[in-house]
């Protein structure tokens, strides 16, 4: 094989003890790093800003967002689709790459799964707040109510509840089960009794016996099998929120695959956005190597091309359908009032993405970081364009209108970044961000094969 030619997935010279020390030290070192505190402070401030915006929303109602007829979805649905899409890379890495025996997933799966959970938490907020009366959200669930009503299964909102609910449940269980041997390691390495107790409770009595490991591997593999279809199904369901409507630009069979590709595209961009600073600040370059970054970049390139194919197909189908509303929608997207947003998304998702063809760029962390940011902006803009341009001018010109996000829209969007970042900062400081047990396994295998 050409194993020598490729960058390694873990730098040479590590054994079980040094792997464990390096990863647990990120959490167990005292005192906390100033940079970490500063980062958490900024993120927390943004989170408080979102809380303020949500408080005002609950007092005043969704009217404070710019939504009204004809654009009733606005930022809330844009943000929802964007965040839930970002989550997909985590499940892709942890489940699909596990089943495909891709050993480079090992050092990035843990924090990618955490990213999934936090992204789903952010995503779930938006449809709930968009309900108008979020305090009766449980009406969306089938339970023996006093109204004699059952959730309306023809409503996309109900599909979302089940898609996202399933996704969140499976993701949490998968993540937690994977964490068990690692929190046991943390328990064994913690200095104070109190910390030992906390990790000890979380470890659920893990002793690392052969029987524990056997069951652990079975459960982990089964959960990976369960999570795999979710990578495809969750965002397909989200895309059907749009595709079931007859609105031009939404009513299209291409939506599920096009959305799934876009989800993994933006998700890997987020993985890079997180991985590149983490490996730098915690000196984890030996574990998250250039090989990882390059592989993520390759997936971004591939999924980005699929998304580009989606854009082309949309244009082609509008022309091929000979439907004047579809044709108008396509032209309106490109040259109408929202043309800058459309060309921004094309620039980011199709233009900037092409840089990833070059190995020099794929192996340059700083450039990759910037490209990943561009792609996230591009993917948010894509959802914005899909939601807004289709709604603002549909069949009835007398009902046309223009939508712009208000300051509350922007505060909630930027605040959700604060929520995500706050959770992520806490995660870095409280749990091992890289799977210790899998890394030990990997180091062992690499030294075996080198022998």
């Amino acid at each position, binding site marked *: 094989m050409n194993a020598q030619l490729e960058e390694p997935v873990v730098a040479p010279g590590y054994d079980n003890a040094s792997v464990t020390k390096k990863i647990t030290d990120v959490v167990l070192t005292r005192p906390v790093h100033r940079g970490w505190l500063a980062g958490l402070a900024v993120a927390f401030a943004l989170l408080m800003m979102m809380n303020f915006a949500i408080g005002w929303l609950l007092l005043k109602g969704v009217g404070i967002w710019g939504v009204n007829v004809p654009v009733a979805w606005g930022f809330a649905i844009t943000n929802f689709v964007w965040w839930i899409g970002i989550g997909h890379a985590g499940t892709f890495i942890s489940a699909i790459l596990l089943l495909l025996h891709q050993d480079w997933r090992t050092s990035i799966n843990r924090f990618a799964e955490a990213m999934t959970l936090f992204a789903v938490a952010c995503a779930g907020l938006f449809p709930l707040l968009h309900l108008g009366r979020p305090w009766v959200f449980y009406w969306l669930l089938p339970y*023996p*109510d*006093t*109204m*004699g*009503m059952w959730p309306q299964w023809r409503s996309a909102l109900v599909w979302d509840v089940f898609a996202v609910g399933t996704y969140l449940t499976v993701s949490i269980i998968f993540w937690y089960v994977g964490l068990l041997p690692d929190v046991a390691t943390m*328990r*064994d390495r913690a200095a104070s009794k109190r910390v*030992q*107790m906390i990790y*000890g409770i979380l470890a*659920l*009595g893990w002793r690392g016996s052969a029987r524990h490991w056997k069951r652990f591997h079975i459960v982990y593999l089964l959960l990976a099998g369960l999570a795999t279809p979710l990578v495809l199904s969750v965002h397909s369901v989200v895309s059907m929120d749009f595709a079931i409507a007859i609105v031009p630009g939404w009513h299209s069979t291409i939506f599920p695959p096009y959305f799934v590709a876009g989800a993994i595209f933006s998700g890997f961009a987020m993985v890079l956005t997180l991985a590149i600073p983490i490996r730098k600040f915690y000196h984890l370059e030996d574990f998250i190597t250039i090989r990882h970054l390059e592989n993520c970049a390759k997936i971004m390139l591939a999924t980005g091309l699929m998304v580009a194919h989606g854009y082309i197909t949309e244009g082609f189908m509008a022309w091929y359908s000979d439907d004047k509303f579809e044709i108008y929608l396509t032209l309106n997207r490109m040259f109408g009032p929202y043309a800058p947003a459309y060309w921004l998304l094309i620039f980011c998702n199709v233009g900037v993405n092409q840089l990833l063809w070059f190995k020099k760029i794929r192996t340059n962390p700083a450039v990759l970081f910037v490209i990943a940011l561009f792609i996230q902006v591009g993917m948010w803009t894509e959802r914005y364009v899909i939601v807004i341009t289709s709604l603002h001018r549909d069949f009835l010109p007398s009902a046309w209108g223009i939508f712009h996000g208000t300051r509350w829209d922007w505060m909630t969007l930027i605040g959700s970044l604060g929520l995500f970042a706050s959770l992520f900062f806490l995660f870095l400081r409280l749990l091992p961000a890289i799977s210790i047990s899998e890394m030990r396994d990997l180091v062992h295998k690499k030294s075996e094969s080198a022998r």
Partner: protein
Amino acid sequence: MGQLFKKRANAIAKLVIFGGVGLVATVSVALYALARSDFWTEVDVPIEQPVPFSHQHHVGGLGIDCRYCHTSVEQSPFAGVPPTETCMTCHSQVWKDAPVLQPVRDSLQTGKPIKWTRVHDLPDYVYFDHSIHVNKGIGCESCHGRVDRMPLTAKAQPLYMRWCLDCHRQPQNFLRPTNEVVDMDYKAPVNQRAFGQELIAKNHVHTAGLTDCYTCHR
């Protein structure tokens, strides 16, 4: 490293797991029961009124027709609460000095209506019309219960939407001939379902629209 947890930690862990499941189950069942209890729905709980009016005495004892006081029940959404003058058609002659009726006499003197407290208070987002129900053959008693046996008036039904829908989904189970609407002692025939179907046709009950959202939420 020594043992971190004492032996009793095992018992605590089991308690937390099974207790957690048990707690969730218990709370769910309790909430389910609470929402349907008379304590919550105030079914059969008499509401305090300025005058302790007895439907039992007036309807059951004296046999006064519902429509003698609730005059607009056949023509309007609101059944109508009688003006003081209606009370006085009799009480200017009988019990005219009874202390319990002092508020009624005050009302007639000052011209200020008696402030009755509503027993059946639907939420404002519900559109309800008495006349359509009465004219299509829903008996007073079907919703208001045996008022002829109520010394003090109370709700007989929870007025939950589920209860409304029980009838709107299958009106044939509850319809009666229109001339029996005010009968408190009406007995449904044994073939009520088939008979109800006949009444649906006869009274032109448009069943297709009965469960549309906008039928009751306008």
